[in-house]
């Protein structure tokens, strides 16, 4: 009934009344009236012709972990992005095939030197708390992200070249960059750079993560710690990107994210109908769910950097290319990926994930495991097998500390266990260090020789964070690879605006990384969800995050 009260448009009200009247007659009559009201009757032909969507219902979705915060500027967790994607909108929208489209910004222009971006904003948008959306709000958002007291994480790494923003007129905002940045526009579509209500940000400060207020299709209702997060329809919503069939308010009444960390329980909840969709389906369960006619499996390979093992070159002998190549040849990546992920995860060949701008498919099937050659390389370096089969040199055993985090996420600890066995065959002892305190051990103490990592990203400039000697964001690079040539390539890639030239730079950088055995790419991490067939039109963006504008639930 709140729905009726809030709709001031008499046509819509009429459509809803007719919906109520005909509710008992037939589903198609009722829902066509509803969809007419939703898409503002602009295309009556379309909604009548296609199967008309059903309004109402609750979408229950099982999350694998609890989000840390629903403040997009603060949280960098995938699981949090999955939730706040529905609460917040971004300035631009990135389609699944990597096209940049208008969203909260209706159009934009770039100055010839590539350092000034001017955005014209939509004028009909307002936040859930009634605050109007305008250039001032956008400026406040970006000021907030770069303000050190916000403690922004991932969001800040997308703004490495950002300098300032200014309000040109109430609905025009301009961003000034320090250097031209090819990644800037694409990164604006990231959920981490979504626009929050400046009123709420001021009111709640750091607590915004518990009281999220945005312009998105759903409003925040409540968050029960470690149990569930509930959202309800934003009845005023009328500014979805063109990529959706439904630009108006979403069809679903509510969305409930249930937090179900245990894998078996999560799958059980889906099978028993307690939730309608779940994320992070383990590879070994995919086949069974695929064969079940009640569910569909949706898998999206993440863009950005695949999961790769970084060899820490601060520790001898790994500063030597031959030693690193021995590891590169000694680890049988195919065997790891096939054994643990049953062909559900793809093997990675490059430090970039397929589909990311700049990815070079020529690297595929390049490096093949060759244990004999690996042994020869270590022999050449003077590491000879000792009595127990472990190589020694000057009385020192060839030992690697392999650091991985607790708990065992995505079977990464199992990768470590297999690597341990594989490297034993070439005479390298691997000690497994599983710790909760990865950032201390890896980033502060550098107490590792092997550490696996990867990140989702839309742009190859993500390579800079992991491979540039100084990391640009202030983090030390994971490989400790100190190479002016690679640094120069990565810096040029950041600022080059010509796509063709940029492609060339990043392809060279990828080959350089692989040829110098800086890392060993393992797998392209997909986000796999299983969805009940009762749910229709669940969509995903380029990063595999949920988009619920068109989604309907059948009973």
């Amino acid at each position, binding site marked *: 009934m709140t729905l009726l009260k809030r709709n001031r448009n008499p046509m819509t009200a009429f459509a809803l009344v007719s919906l109520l009247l005909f509710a008992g007659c037939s589903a198609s009559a009722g829902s066509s009236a509803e969809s007419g009201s939703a898409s503002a009757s602009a295309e009556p032909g379309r909604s009548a012709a296609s199967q008309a969507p059903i309004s109402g219902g609750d979408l229950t979705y099982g999350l694998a972990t609890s989000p840390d915060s629903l403040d997009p500027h603060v949280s960098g967790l995938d699981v949090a992005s999955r939730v706040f994607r529905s609460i917040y909108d971004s300035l631009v929208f990135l389609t699944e095939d990597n096209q940049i489209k208008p969203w909260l910004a209706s159009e934009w222009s770039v100055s010839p030197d590539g350092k000034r971006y001017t955005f014209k904003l939509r004028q009909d948008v307002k936040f859930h708390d009634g605050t109007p959306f305008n250039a001032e709000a956008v400026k406040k958002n970006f000021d907030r992200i770069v303000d050190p007291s916000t403690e922004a994480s991932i969001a800040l790494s997308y703004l490495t070249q950002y300098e300032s923003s200014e309000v040109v007129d109430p609905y025009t905002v301009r961003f000034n960059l320090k250097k031209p940045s090819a990644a800037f526009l694409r990164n604006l579509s990231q959920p981490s750079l979504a626009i929050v209500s400046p009123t709420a940000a001021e009111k709640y400060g750091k607590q915004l993560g518990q009281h999220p207020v945005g312009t998105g299709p759903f409003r925040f209702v409540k968050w029960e710690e470690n149990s569930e997060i509930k959202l309800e329809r934003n009845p005023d919503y009328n500014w979805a990107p063109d990529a959706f069939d439904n630009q108006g308010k979403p069809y679903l009444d509510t969305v409930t994210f249930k937090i179900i960390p245990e*894998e*078996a329980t999560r*799958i059980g909840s889906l099978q028993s109908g307690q939730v309608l969709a779940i994320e992070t389906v*383990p590879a*070994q*369960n995919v086949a*069974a769910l695929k064969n079940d006619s009640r569910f569909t499996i949706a898998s999206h390979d993440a863009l950005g950097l695949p999961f790769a093992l970084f060899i820490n070159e601060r520790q001898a002998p790994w500063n030597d290319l031959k030693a690193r190549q021995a590891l590169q040849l000694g680890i049988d990546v195919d*065997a790891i990926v*096939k*054994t*643990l992920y049953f062909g559900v995860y793809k093997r990675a060949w490059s430090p970039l994930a397929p589909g990311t701008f700049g990815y070079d498919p020529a690297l595929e099937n390049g490096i093949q495991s060759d244990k004999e050659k690996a042994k020869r390389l270590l022999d050449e370096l003077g590491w000879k097998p000792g009595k127990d089969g472990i190589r020694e040199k000057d009385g020192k055993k060839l030992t690697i500390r392999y650091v991985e985090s*607790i*708990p*065992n996420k995505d079977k990464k*600890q*199992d990768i*470590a*266990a*297999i690597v*341990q*066995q594989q490297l034993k065959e070439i005479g390298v002892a691997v*000690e*497994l260090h*599983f*710790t909760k305190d990865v950032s201390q051990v890896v980033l502060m103490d550098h107490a590792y020789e092997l550490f696996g990592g990867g990140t989702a990203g839309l742009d190859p400039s993500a390579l800079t964070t992991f491979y540039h000697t100084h990391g640009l964001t202030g983090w030390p690079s994971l490989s400790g690879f100190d190479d002016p040539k690679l640094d120069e390539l990565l810096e040029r890639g950041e600022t080059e605006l010509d796509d063709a030239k940029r492609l060339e730079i990043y392809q060279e950088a990828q080959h350089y990384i692989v040829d110098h055995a800086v890392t060993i790419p393992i797998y392209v991490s997909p986000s796999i969800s299983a969805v009940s067939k009762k749910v229709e039109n669940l969509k995903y963006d380029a990063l595999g995050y949920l988009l619920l504008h068109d989604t309907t639930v059948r009973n």
Partner: protein
Amino acid sequence: MRQETALTRWIGRERIARGRKPSAARRGGTQRLLLYGAAAVVIYFLACAIVPQWLAPFPPMEMRMDRSLLPPGPSHWFGTDYYGRDLYSVVVYGSRQSLLVGIASVLAGGLSGALLGAVSGYAGGLVDAVIMRAVDVLMTVPGLLLALAVAAALGPGRWNIVLAVAVASVPGYARVMRGQILSVKVRPYVRASASIGASPSRVFWTHVLPNSLSPLYVMSTLGIGASILAGSGLSFLGLGDWNASPDWGAILSQGRGYMTVAWWISAFPGFAITAFVLSVNLYGDWLRDFLDPKKNARGK
């Protein structure tokens, strides 16, 4: 008081009368058979722990990707896990880790608990009060939670699990030992010994201690089973040693995500835990009967 004694006597008589007849039959039949079975299981797992290389058909850490997730069959009795390891061999080698945790933590926990209890009970007074209050504090924390806290503070590792389980079992041993000492030290023969001039330490070593130990034997036998369970629980939670071959709890945990795909990974280490703990408990029960003078089974 008089009434109570009469009641106790009656219960005692009843128990003896009821207990004897069927128990005589049982001891000869099912019970004996069970005991032999339990002995076989315990001996088998001890052998597994001592000489696993004689009993395991494959090296436990040999990963062969071409044979991963095979169901139980003639070539792999327990099937294979997702690494392509022979699960039977992994379980055989795992018994070494599990039994080590069980026995070592009982030794450590039992000895220190007994020591605390003995000192406390025999010394009495302020010493008793201090030690027992400390033990009481330890007791307020549930055993597994205490073990979990210790393991979390010390980090993963086999010896940390031993320590964690041992610490959690100390209060139980200390309490029992203290109670035993208290009841033994006031018995007439102990007093007699003291009255003819035996020194307190002589009284303690020759009379009090030997006569206080039998419940502790029973308790520690039963404790081995409980410790293996607790140790398995901790390594199930990921607090075990990742560089050694996995113990039963760790294998169980590894198979957890595969229950619907490959039930055998979790099932067989689970059976191993059940079989061993059950056998040890049967022995504990038998030992209790055997050492209990009231049951008087020794003479018959």
